[in-house]
């Protein structure tokens, strides 16, 4: 039993320590911000690529060779940039 009581007091001290220092949270935020950096960079490229592929497929479908691929390339770029702005806004709201 003494072992358990000892554990209880130790747990209490540890909990107070966690409450006091938000160092743990800071660490978490650091890794997740690096994660969102990876997310943003690939998202931008993926949006443009997917837009262009959709344009290419639709072009083959409707036989309007160069036009839809051009339009969808720009739409993809817009989507990518909008997505980055959205994510950045969300990150700012969190802080």
């Amino acid at each position: 039993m003494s072992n358990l009581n000892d554990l209880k007091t130790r747990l209490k001290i540890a909990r107070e320590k966690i409450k006091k220092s938000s160092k743990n949270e800071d660490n978490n935020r650091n890794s997740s911000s690096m994660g969102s950096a990876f997310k943003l960079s690939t998202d931008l490229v993926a949006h443009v690529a997917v837009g262009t592929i959709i344009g290419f497929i639709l072009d083959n479908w409707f036989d309007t060779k160069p036009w839809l691929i051009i339009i969808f390339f720009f739409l993809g770029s817009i989507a990518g940039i909008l997505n980055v702005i959205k994510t950045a806004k969300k990150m700012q709201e969190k802080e």
Partner: protein
Amino acid sequence: MATNPMHQFQVHRIGPEIKIIGIDLSFTNASLFMLLSATAICALLFLGTREKKIIPDKLQLISEMFYNFIAKMINDTAGSKAKPYFPFIFSLFMFVLFCNMLGMLPYSFTVTSHIIVTLLMAIFIFIAVTVIGFLKHGFGYLKLFVPSGVPTLLLPLITIIEIISYLSRPVSLSVRLFANMMAGHTMLKVFGGFVISLGMLGGWLPLGFSVALTGLEILVAFLQAYVFAILTCIYLNDALNLHH
């Protein structure tokens, strides 16, 4: 051949060739390392939770840490509604993490550096999330593509853009993991090749780089597994709690 930095990504057959209806189903080094990582995960979790002590030993501590980490992540990003999907996200995270980490061992094979593996996982997540969304909200799920508060003139344009960004989810999810793992391992091999070719005189500088890059790669291996899991949670959140 050994100095070719892309040689490490080659898939080759282990054991006899197995062909079923013209499809090659032979056991390869990729399957070996998938099996190894699955076995390692099972071993860790079984051994860790075998004796449920109040004061945990090291293995129990590690497995409980993983459990808490994922449970907290799901709760923070997707809310309490996503609790039933915990087993899926947990196994997804563990599998990607262990594949990445096993790939860091010398002479091993990185399964996640092949786009077919990551794309398959990403497409599965994409289809699953879409099905869940339609099951929960019916055709109301299509509201995801029509954000509120947009002028009617711009609505068709915004809808097309939203559809493009929805379709680009599996692409960005798979390409991120695959490109990071492949680029990192190629770079490690290139610097390793410099050490050999520069010899005793100039080989020390690339050797130092190699050591630093190994540390970075271990960080990236963990981070990519984390990003993969957290993005799955975010997509799940979109499907479960529809609000725009």
